[in-house]
């Protein structure tokens, strides 16, 4: 007895708790038919669960479950916290691996027939564990609040909402508010880190207790069952080996395939195909087979059926036969089931929404984005023009091919693009000559415009374009006419004003005007200020709406004469004149009047709690698409205005390569420098177009600005997702682990060899 006191402690504890007996009972279990690697799947699940719990708790030291900081806190954890890449990577890949290994574990139990009497309870508890796993896989991906997670949550909650009878109850329960937002994120969080872990812990205990009561079922062959193996140390050794291999795999995946950065969730973004997490893809795909009124069958019926089918297995398949070769029907149906799930998952994985496909087909954007061709494809146009009018290229086709649609809409509605809607602009009654000048040399009308000159177009093409523009006719006015009862006098004035306000918003007046009582950087005046100052009469307002140029010949405001009927015009006028009594909207917290910009400078409307673009790791690929929408017309293909064939406006700097004074090898510093320009704009000193203030004007969201920044960094060879503080370089860490593992293996082999051969 080298350390008798240790034994004394052991005995003291044993006497009072019985723990030692408990553990030795636990360890000294016999395994019929000997130990096997195929029995390690359960232990692998247990190991993965443990490691998920540890890395999960650890991530809570940094992660914040709020919609403005969730994404940036996670990015901070991943890029700036030592070994954050590993902790997050293990959790990210661990979840995936857990799902897969749980699947294999179930399959193993199924093939071996281990669910049969007396082990039905183990099987049933196992099904509960599968459902809990599904709960984790559903709630987890929402937590980063990135583009993909946001939609995964949205779709998942939507599915829950479509279940008959209890649907809206479940949706409200999961969402906590009328739409996907902060409440939903918090609920996903609480489920993921508190409720589900508690439940899974309890059910794992139950699973283990139920399992240990009857132990391993062993091989189906009765003869083989006679030989006996032991849990400790033989089976545990195998378990530990597999566990360690899984750990190595997790480190490998974390180091070489880090979780993607999808950019901050942006509900406005239509380029993302909403999809659930990969483990629900089969369900998502199944839903497509149940259109319209049949949908509840897909959302509720199918999952319920799958669960019932699994749960009833030990009760329907009652024969004690365990040999899979003698259970042909059950085994084959089982495999058909698994095959179907895998196939549906694959279908769901490759599915792209029509909107996304259309995006890909659009020649100007994604083709360019994907093949890195320059835009617009002038060579193509020249060939088309050279092939002469026989090819009948229409003005409309030209309009689209040239990329005009990147900045202009032709819907007759105020769009969210950089340029004016061209149907709305028709109110200005531009002449043929004016349009021609605008196309060839836009700066001749407005030296600050960011519209690129299309001087290289042939006369023929210019005429085609102009005739197309002239052919555009205003479409139906969107806002529905007021209900007759309302318009037919007698409706209270408040209602009419309110209706006028709706019209005001629907007609896109806010594209050029603000209603806040403070100066803004929009083209038109703030209407509370203007109307309070001049107190215009209703007639004056009406004339302004119908023929703005009557008051100011240089006004760029379009005429609304053809766009509003009399009743609507009156409502609008009522609304506008009611603004004389309106109080200015309060400034956001933390913004002073001076900051909000009396010299016409833009107010940082969204300061305060909302996270700024510099704190967001943007998605570079998405940034590339945005670049083609908003930047390429000045900065040129891939940010290089000197690209041959591209006619860059004056004074526009190259982004590729970017000015050395701006460049910084540290992605965070680099982003902070260019962010200023994207947010607040830069005046052009050479008479060319100004850099627009994309942030201040809200032309782009902060998430989009972050995406663009990632792309510009990428153009200059800087990776926005560079790990700033890895602890140890991920790849080096993996190689180091591998090296040490090899040493351990070699030492063990050497020892084994000496022991066997030399009988030490």
């Amino acid at each position: 007895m080298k350390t008798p006191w240790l034994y004394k402690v052991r005995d003291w504890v044993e006497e009072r708790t019985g723990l030692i007996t408990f553990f030795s009972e636990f360890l000294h279990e016999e395994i019929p038919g000997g130990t096997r690697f195929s029995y390690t799947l359960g232990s692998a699940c247990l190991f993965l669960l443990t490691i998920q719990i540890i890395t999960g708790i650890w991530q809570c030291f940094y992660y914040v479950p709020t919609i403005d900081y969730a994404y940036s806190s996670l990015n901070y954890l991943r890029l700036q916290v030592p070994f954050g890449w590993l902790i997050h990577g293990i959790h990210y890949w661990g979840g995936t691996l857990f799902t897969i290994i749980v699947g294999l574990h179930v399959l193993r139990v199924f093939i071996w027939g281990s669910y049969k009497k007396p082990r039905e309870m183990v099987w049933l508890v196992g099904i509960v564990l599968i459902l809990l796993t599904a709960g984790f896989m559903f709630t987890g991906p929402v937590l980063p609040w990135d583009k993909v997670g946001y939609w995964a949550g949205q779709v998942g909650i939507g599915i829950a909402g479509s279940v008959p009878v209890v649907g809206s109850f479940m949706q409200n329960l999961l969402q906590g508010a009328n739409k996907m937002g902060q409440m939903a994120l918090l609920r996903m969080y609480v489920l993921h880190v508190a409720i589900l872990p508690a439940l899974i812990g309890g059910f794992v205990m139950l699973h283990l207790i139920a399992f240990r009561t009857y132990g391993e079922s062993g091989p189906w062959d009765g003869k083989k069952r006679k030989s006996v193996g032991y849990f400790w140390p033989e089976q545990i050794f195998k378990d530990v080996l597999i566990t360690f291999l899984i750990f190595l795999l997790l480190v490998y995946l974390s180091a070489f395939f880090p979780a993607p950065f999808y950019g901050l969730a942006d509900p406005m973004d239509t380029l993302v195909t909403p999809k659930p997490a990969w483990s629900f893809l089969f369900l998502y795909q199944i839903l497509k087979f149940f259109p319209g009124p049949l949908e509840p069958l897909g959302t509720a019926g199918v999952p319920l059926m799958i669960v019932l089918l699994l749960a009833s297995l030990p009760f329907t398949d009652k024969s004690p036969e365990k040999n899979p070769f003698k259970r042909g029907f059950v085994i084959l149906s089982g495999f058909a089931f698994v095959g179907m799930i895998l196939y549906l998952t694959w279908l769901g994985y490759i599915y792209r929404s029509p909107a996304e496909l259309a995006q890909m087909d659009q020649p100007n954007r994604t083709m360019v984005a994907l093949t890195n061709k320059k835009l617009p494809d002038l060579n193509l146009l020249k060939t088309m023009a050279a092939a002469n009018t026989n090819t009948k290229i229409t003005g409309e086709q030209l309009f689209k091919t040239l990329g005009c649609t990147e900045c202009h809409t032709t819907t007759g509605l105020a769009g969210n693009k950089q340029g004016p809607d061209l149907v709305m602009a028709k109110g200005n009654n531009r002449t043929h000559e004016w349009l021609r000048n605008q196309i060839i040399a836009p700066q001749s009308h407005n030296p600050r415009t960011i519209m690129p000159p299309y001087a290289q177009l042939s006369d023929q093409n210019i005429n085609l374009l102009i005739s197309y523009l002239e052919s555009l006719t205003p479409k139906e006015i969107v806002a529905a006419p007021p209900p007759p009862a309302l318009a037919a006098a007698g409706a209270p004035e408040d209602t009419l004003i309110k209706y006028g306000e709706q019209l005001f918003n629907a007609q896109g007046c806010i594209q050029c005007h603000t209603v806040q009582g403070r100066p803004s950087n929009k083209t038109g005046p703030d209407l509370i200020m203007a109307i309070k100052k001049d107190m215009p009469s209703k007639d004056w307002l009406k004339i302004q709406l119908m023929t703005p140029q009557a008051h100011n010949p240089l006004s760029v405001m379009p005429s609304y004469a053809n766009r509003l009927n009399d009743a609507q015009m009156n409502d609008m006028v009522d609304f506008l004149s009611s603004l004389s009594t309106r109080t200015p909207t309060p400034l956001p917290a933390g913004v002073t009047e001076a900051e909000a910009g009396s010299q016409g400078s833009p107010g940082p409307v969204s300061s305060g709690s909302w996270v700024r673009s510099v704190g967001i790791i943007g998605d570079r690929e998405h940034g590339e698409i945005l670049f083609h929408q908003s930047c390429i017309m000045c900065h040129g293909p891939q940010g290089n205005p000197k690209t041959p064939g591209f006619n860059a406006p004056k004074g526009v700097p190259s982004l590729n390569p970017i000015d050395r004074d701006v460049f910084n090898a540290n992605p965070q510093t680099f982003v902070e420098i260019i962010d200023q320009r994207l947010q607040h704009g830069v005046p052009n000193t050479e008479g060319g177009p100004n850099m627009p203030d994309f942030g201040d004007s809200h032309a782009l969201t902060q998430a989009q600005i972050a995406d663009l920044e990632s792309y510009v960094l990428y153009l200059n060879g800087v990776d926005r997702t560079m790990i700033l503080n890895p602890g140890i370089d991920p790849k080096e860490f993996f190689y180091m682990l591998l090296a040490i593992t090899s040493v351990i293996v070699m030492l063990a082999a050497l020892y084994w060899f000496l022991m066997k051969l030399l009988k030490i």
Partner: protein
Amino acid sequence: MTNHTSTPRSQEPEDIQKRNFIKGLTAAVLGFLSLCLTWPLVSFLVPASNEGTGEKFIKVPNFPAIATGKPTKMTFEDVDVQAFITSNIVYDIWVIKHAADKATVYSPLCTHLNCRYTFVNNEFACPCHGSIFNEDGKVLAGPAPRPLDTLPYKIEGGELYVQWKLYKAGIPEKVEL
């Protein structure tokens, strides 16, 4: 419990040796695995050293406008970045302007236990434990162990720039935290 330890294990020396070998190897692999986990888990919680946030002089607005010779409570704002959150912090200081290019800048915290003192009857008085300092910062009464802490400052172009610092309370020496 049906299957447990009913069959006695082989006690052949060779089997025992093999069993011990497996036990040893299991322990080694498990030990290595725990090490591989513990190291990152611990480092993860120990933040990187502060990236040179000190040594920064921040402008205190309105210095040219304040009266000479009289302690004035002034505030200035700094941007504080902690991890992924950027916030504005307002600091307050006591400034005695001697001339356009000369001043004394006091930390607003009493040297006893870091309470915020006030200026009454031409004395700095701490409300917590009654320490009193004169305008030169000297302790006149109370438990304060050392004079008021001055903060580093510079005056450039008539404007005051101050470096915010914290000092350890309750000891006679001025020790920066």
